[in-house]
């Protein structure tokens, strides 16, 4: 009836913009990763060096540390968020006065800019300004100094992430719980199943796809966390909280070793995509198929 030409014309601006600002940078960074290029170095020209940049990566202790702490951070943050989020979602399944109001408050952190989240937690934890070190000292005699102690700094980046993103987990899992049929639960109760049994054999298998999808979304976000952590700890002390995004931004970039920086970018993108794909193919896709 109407020609497809019009359709392509309507789609064209989107394709052009995503082509220039999505694909082109990718090709460019891929191209650079096979070159040696430092405009302020001994040889300012681009020189093709094959896979040498990638070979350097394998022995780059700083880079490997960054990958390791990122994975550790993502694991602790996402795991805690799923557990806490699930418990809170269960709480929201009950009826109580003011439920809508509490839900609104619980959702609030989601909208706060990451950089502001960082500044909020910095004000909470910086010695002498923050309230946490003060009360930890006066009530428990603990010395909390995120600028000095690596473990504490790591712990607070995780706490900050939990504060910021648990609401998202709560709400996705709540939606999943609300969509479950009631019959299996009633039947199980009649049959005398314990609470733990109901959880392991009925609730968990049924909301498994929702949990996996949530883990997927959260993991992708946790792996690329930069703003909050930069604001809270600046990657320190030392390199204890220098997560991979931060590593690219704060270490690779200012060195103007662009070829090598490009190789790191490519590898990080590749690792993210592979993890993404493995999670999707291995966990999310088959369960969805089985359940539909």
């Amino acid at each position, binding site marked *: 009836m109407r020609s497809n030409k019009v359709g392509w014309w*309507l789609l064209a601006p989107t394709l052009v913009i995503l082509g220039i600002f999505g694909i082109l940078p990718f090709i460019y960074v891929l191209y650079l990763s096979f070159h040696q290029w430092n405009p302020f170095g001994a040889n300012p020209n681009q020189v093709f060096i094959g896979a040498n940049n990638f070979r350097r990566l394998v022995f780059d202790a700083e880079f490997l540390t960054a990958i390791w702490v990122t994975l550790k951070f993502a694991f602790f943050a996402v795991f805690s968020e799923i557990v806490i989020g699930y418990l809170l979602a269960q709480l929201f399944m*009950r009826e*109580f006065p*003011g439920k809508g109001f509490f839900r609104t*408050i619980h*959702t609030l952190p989601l909208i706060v800019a990451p950089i502001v989240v960082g500044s909020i937690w910095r004000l909470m934890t910086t010695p002498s300004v923050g309230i946490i070190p003060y009360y930890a000292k006066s009530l428990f005699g603990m010395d909390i100094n995120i600028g000095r102690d690596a473990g504490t700094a790591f712990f607070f980046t995780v706490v900050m992430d939990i504060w910021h993103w648990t609401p998202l987990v709560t709400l996705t899992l709540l939606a999943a719980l609300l969509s479950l049929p009631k019959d299996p639960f009633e039947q199980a109760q009649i049959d005398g199943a314990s609470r733990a049994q109901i959880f392991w054999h009925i609730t968990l298998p049924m909301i498994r796809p929702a949990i996996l999808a949530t883990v997927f979304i959260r993991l992708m976000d946790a792996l690329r966390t930069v703003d909050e952590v930069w604001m809270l700890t600046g990657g320190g002390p030392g390199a204890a909280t220098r997560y991979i995004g931060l590593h690219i931004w704060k270490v690779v970039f200012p060195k103007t070793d662009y070829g090598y920086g490009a190789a790191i970018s490519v590898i990080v993108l590749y690792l993210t995509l592979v993890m993404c794909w493995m999670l999707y193919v291995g966990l999310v896709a088959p369960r969805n198929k089985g359940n539909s």
Partner: protein
Amino acid sequence: MRPSNPWLNVLLWILLSFATLFPIYWLFVISVKPAVDLFTTPEIILRSLYWKNYVEVFNDPTLRRYMTNSLIISTGNALLCSVLAFMACYALSRFDLAGKENIFFWTITNRMAPAAVFLLPFFLLYTKVFAIGDFKLYDTRIGLILLYCTFNLPFAIWTLRPTIDGIPKELDEAATVDGCSTWQTIREVVWPLARPGMAVTFILIWVFAWNEFLLAATLTSFNARTITTGLSEYVTTTGTAWGKMAAISIFTLIPALIIFSMVQRSIVAGLTFGAVKE
């Protein structure tokens, strides 16, 4: 599922809400204290309000420029993305284009990539490659507006598609039979029906662009800096001005809070790629 005292729940949620709100409240407390009071015993209850931090922030021409930039960039990006996404979704929904579902999924992969990975290529493209004469995209507002499309346009397409798909095709066909051109059909039939969905998309993108930090910090130096980068500058150069830093944070927070109160439910749907529908 099991009988429990509802007031126990309320009590529990009051405690949890306290945990959620206290850090934000603390930000406010710091922002309304004079610097000399910061290093004494932390007081949770405010006895007096000291507004000078806000006045100083508001009277600082640099910060005012940053705020204007943020406003222009977020609004520009939200407008551009919503209009382009509307066109794209209409095309994907109503035309039988070859490989259109693949295109649809391809768009979303753009959003999945970590922004940090694109810092280096964008920086080099903006400073060295995308240049016409003396004009470079580096440190320009239009540069950031276009750049944010990489992440926000796929999001807009993703969230608008169900809206456009939900408008019955029969309405378009009836309009065509009545002699409307494609343009008239879009303007008279589809656009009015898509408006509520468009509004939500627009608002969400506005917030994303407003909140963005990493790319703005890397790809601007002076003219096009946004308020989020302004906030970060404050910490590094004058790390001790906690009051002012808190005041700028509050300024950054306010627009998002206003918007949050307007479209709370849609925000959740948007952030989960439509996994949570209400």
